[in-house]
């Protein structure tokens, strides 16, 4: 497959690994903040190929995992209403909220549907005019512009039974929050490649300016990840941290101006609660006032109990990179993909699921 296979070349991978070994002299912790990176690193067995001093950490890059229980509980409460069709992306389906999950509500008769694209949700709204269709909008900057497009289309076509429950988040703010907390040693970031096709590379400047950490915008094929790791080590070696774009075939410094403009037209920033990280200022998105009629949170206020987390679940610490799944008492013994306690064990991008499935 063009533009994928070439970046999985074994010989080039071996070569890059040799170069990485050549400059791996000190303990270095590199964090990725994109669930798709978490998956790729596990899928290709990249950890098994890293020399001893190099540690790859997973951060809060899984949008499903960082969705706060309160948001999930709200969506579940809406899903339980008879006149609602609640629509999510596949991953969110089995994530447990405080008391239930979408899978369970479906088993009890709720109309819950999984889609591949937000445009499918809009189509469901067109085809079911007597129902209220709520799309649980989860995702980072790669996905939120697509949802913005759907809102504009809904307005244009006068679709009045389509709503979104926005749990969209912005990743650069979370990266700074992690560095601020100082909880875990991060020596460099693999920056999310597809988020960056939208936002460009400028948002990572403050990480270099304020914290002097290398920030490399990374693709998702094995050669991309290996090259980016090498670039970070090289920067550290020369003590020249900067923002660099490894994924230059699709990432431009300025990102995608059309997408950014549409995003800005429809959404504005707000403070958001991230699972395990508390409230991060200006890290979430909500619909602007002029699009309020599409905001499920305003149109369908729900009363929910105070959200709860299992006190023994370490999802929060895992998302911050402070703990790894095997540190959690529940991991494997109680919490596993078929009986997940926390979101990190459900989402295909979840750190705990990836550890469970791919590590011995």
């Amino acid at each position: 497959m063009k533009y994928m296979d070439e970046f999985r070349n074994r010989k080039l991978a071996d070569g890059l690994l040799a170069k990485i070994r050549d400059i791996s002299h000190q303990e270095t912790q590199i964090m990725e903040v994109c669930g798709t990176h978490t998956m790729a690193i596990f899928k290709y067995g990249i950890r098994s190929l890293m020399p001893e001093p190099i540690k790859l950490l997973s951060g809060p890059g899984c949008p499903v995992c960082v969705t706060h229980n309160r948001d999930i509980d709200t969506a579940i409460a809406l899903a339980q209403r008879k006149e609602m069709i609640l629509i999510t992306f596949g991953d969110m389906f089995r994530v447990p909220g405080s008391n239930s999950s979408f899978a369970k509500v479906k088993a009890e008769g709720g109309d819950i549907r999984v889609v591949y694209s937000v445009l499918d949700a809009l189509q469901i709204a067109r085809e079911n005019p007597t129902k209220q269709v709520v799309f649980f909008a989860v995702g980072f900057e790669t996905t939120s512009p697509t949802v913005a497009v759907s809102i504009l289309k809904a307005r244009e076509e006068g679709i009045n039974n389509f709503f979104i429950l926005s749990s969209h988040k912005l990743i650069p703010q979370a990266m700074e929050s992690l560095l601020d907390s100082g909880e875990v040693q991060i020596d460099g970031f693999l920056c999310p490649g597809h988020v960056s096709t939208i936002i460009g590379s400028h948002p990572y400047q403050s990480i270099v300016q304020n914290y002097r950490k290398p920030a490399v915008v990374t693709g998702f094929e094995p050669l991309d990840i290996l090259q980016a790791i090498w670039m970070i080590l090289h920067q550290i070696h020369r003590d020249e941290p900067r923002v660099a774009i490894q994924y230059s075939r699709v990432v431009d410094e300025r990102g995608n101006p059309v997408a950014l403009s549409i995003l800005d037209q429809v959404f504005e920033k707000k403070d958001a609660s991230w699972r395990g990280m508390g409230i991060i200022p200006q890290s979430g998105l909500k619909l602007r006032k002029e699009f309020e009629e599409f905001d499920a949170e305003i149109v369908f206020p729900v009363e929910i109990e105070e959200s709860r987390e299992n006190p023994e679940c370490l999802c929060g610490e895992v998302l911050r990179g402070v703990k790894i799944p095997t540190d959690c008492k529940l991991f494997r013994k109680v919490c596993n993909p078929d009986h997940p306690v926390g979101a990190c064990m459900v989402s295909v991008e979840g750190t705990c699921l990836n550890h469970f499935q791919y590590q011995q």
Partner: protein
Amino acid sequence: MCLAVPGKITKKKQGHKALVEVAGLEREISLDLLPDALEGEYVLIHTGFAIQKIDEADAEETLSLLRDLVQANEVHG
């Protein structure tokens, strides 16, 4: 979820839509976020939308750079 795949635009259609081909299969996607994409161009597709163009020359350059890096390695042992 930042899953995105490269695909080639085989046909542009009305209303910011296009047919895109991935591994021999075609499907319709939205060009709402990339309205000036052209037929024959490679784009990155995420949840039914083209989100960015793939710079083919850059891709070649990256691969070429990697090949050079690896060769240099082999030369120096």
